[in-house]
């Protein structure tokens, strides 16, 4: 399935949540939407699911307008995990999956339904808890059950809002496998997440969103080429003596400090950082250009504060 977002704007109250947003997600893409809290990511998901109406613009999924009647047919093939997990606390793990299966396949036979639910519970390591009420589940277990639920309708498009939230390391590895396995089956995966390390490894396309605008979009390799040119890693003594001056310098885009290492991003045309450091008598232990990971690119695009 493909998603086409065309010049979509959305205002809630006085606040502009999305401002003329456009992008395309192709069939089979693992597409990540990255941005800080309040950037408009969840609103965009709600628009794709036709829970909100855009003020202007249009969203199509498989060339069907999400606001049209025909969208209900397309919706049959969309699996989702939303910010509020949305599992029914008074039902067991099995009953939760059965409810959603009944919605999507009301005429399915009992044996087919049971087979599907058993398979999903086993896949997400929850079969032994199938008859437990989910109010006794940990956040991670609920998240796994919600992931299982997102597959109940054999979706062609998976929409995952913060899927790694509450997952332990094992759960995160399970999630990574889950996404890759689905992508291999030509399913489109749309993810909102803050887990940049996983996104870098998984995603075929990444879009950066902030204050309702898409800042940039591309593959990790493309973004890395565009944004990692002028990032330096400086390992030095007495950082405190010169760090503030560096931060205030006009050629500096952003600075990130960790122990005795300073990562600094400078303007594209600025090549004199070594000279600047020498002129301040900085005792450099190591100075090197770094190829930025997704976190660096994020800081560069979204604007990690100086």
């Amino acid at each position: 399935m493909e998603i086409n977002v065309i010049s979509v704007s959305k205002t809630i109250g006085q606040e502009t949540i999305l401002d003329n947003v456009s992008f395309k997600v192709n069939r089979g893409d693992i597409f990540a939407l990255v941005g800080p809290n309040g950037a408009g990511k969840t609103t965009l998901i709600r628009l794709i699911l036709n829970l909100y109406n855009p003020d202007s613009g249009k969203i199509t999924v498989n060339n069907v307008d999400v606001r049209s009647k025909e969208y209900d047919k397309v919706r049959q093939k969309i699996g989702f995990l939303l910010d509020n997990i949305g599992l029914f606390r008074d039902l067991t793990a099995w009953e939760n999956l059965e409810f959603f299966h009944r919605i999507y396949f009301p005429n399915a036979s009992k044996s087919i339904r049971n087979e599907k639910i058993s398979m999903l519970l086993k896949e997400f390591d929850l079969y032994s808890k199938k008859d437990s009420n989910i109010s006794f589940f940990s956040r991670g277990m609920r998240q796994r059950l919600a992931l299982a639920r997102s597959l109940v309708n054999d979706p062609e498009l998976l929409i995952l809002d913060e899927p790694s939230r509450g997952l332990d390391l094992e759960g995160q590895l399970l999630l990574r496998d889950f996404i890759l396995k689905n992508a291999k089956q030509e399913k489109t995966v749309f993810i909102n997440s803050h887990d940049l390390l996983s996104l870098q490894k998984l995603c075929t396309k990444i879009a950066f969103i902030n204050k309702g605008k898409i800042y940039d979009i591309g593959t990790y390799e493309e973004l890395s080429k565009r944004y990692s040119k002028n990032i330096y890693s400086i390992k030095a003594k007495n950082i405190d003596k010169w760090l503030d001056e560096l931060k205030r310098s006009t050629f500096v885009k952003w600075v990130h400090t960790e122990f005795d290492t300073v990562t600094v991003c400078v303007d594209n045309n600025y090549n004199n950082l070594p000279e600047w450091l020498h002129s301040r008598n900085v005792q450099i232990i190591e100075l090197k250009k770094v190829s930025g990971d997704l976190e660096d690119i994020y800081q560069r695009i979204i604007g990690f504060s100086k």
Partner: protein
Amino acid sequence: MNPKLHPLLWKELKRQKKSKIMPIIQVIAYCYFYIYLKSIFSIEIVLSLIPLMYVLAIQTDVFHYDFTNYIESLLSLPIEIINIIKSKCIFILLKAYVQSIITTLILLIYHVFIEKKDMVFSVKTFLLIIVLPIWQYYFSYFIGLVIWNLKSKIRIIPYLFQIIILLTCILLLSKNMVNILILIMLGLLLPISIGIKKLTETLSKERILKRSI
């Protein structure tokens, strides 16, 4: 509606199966209510009012249940909001009438075997028993739409509506004005239908979601 059990109805049944204590308390309370007030109300009045009393107790919980963090998932599914509300109405009536039958049996046993009194059901009372569930379905449907559409967080609205109806019923039945009650109920069906139509036209997932989260 699918001829098979609707998934939403199935979900409610599963949920309510786990809460057995409340219905038992309701049945005991209603039986006690009759035994305590038998000098004021006749058994016929009490029996005809049972479903209304139970609907009052059940519908607020059922209509409000989804207004927590499930609502977003529920609205994202390929089902119409109107079908969610309709299935809730059907569930409310089913549960109210199942409880009513049990209560009626207990009260009849008490009335006939312990009190050793006769039952005299007039044609009018039978007519009332037929009109009540139909009327109650539309009325619950209307209340469901009010809750989902207008102000989902105000729980008092359905109570107020239903208490007014209940008090009117008690007043008219205690004065043996069954015909007038039936006429009022039938007469109210028109404005209720108009209300249902208007509220259905303005149902919006966005508004429901904004009020629930």
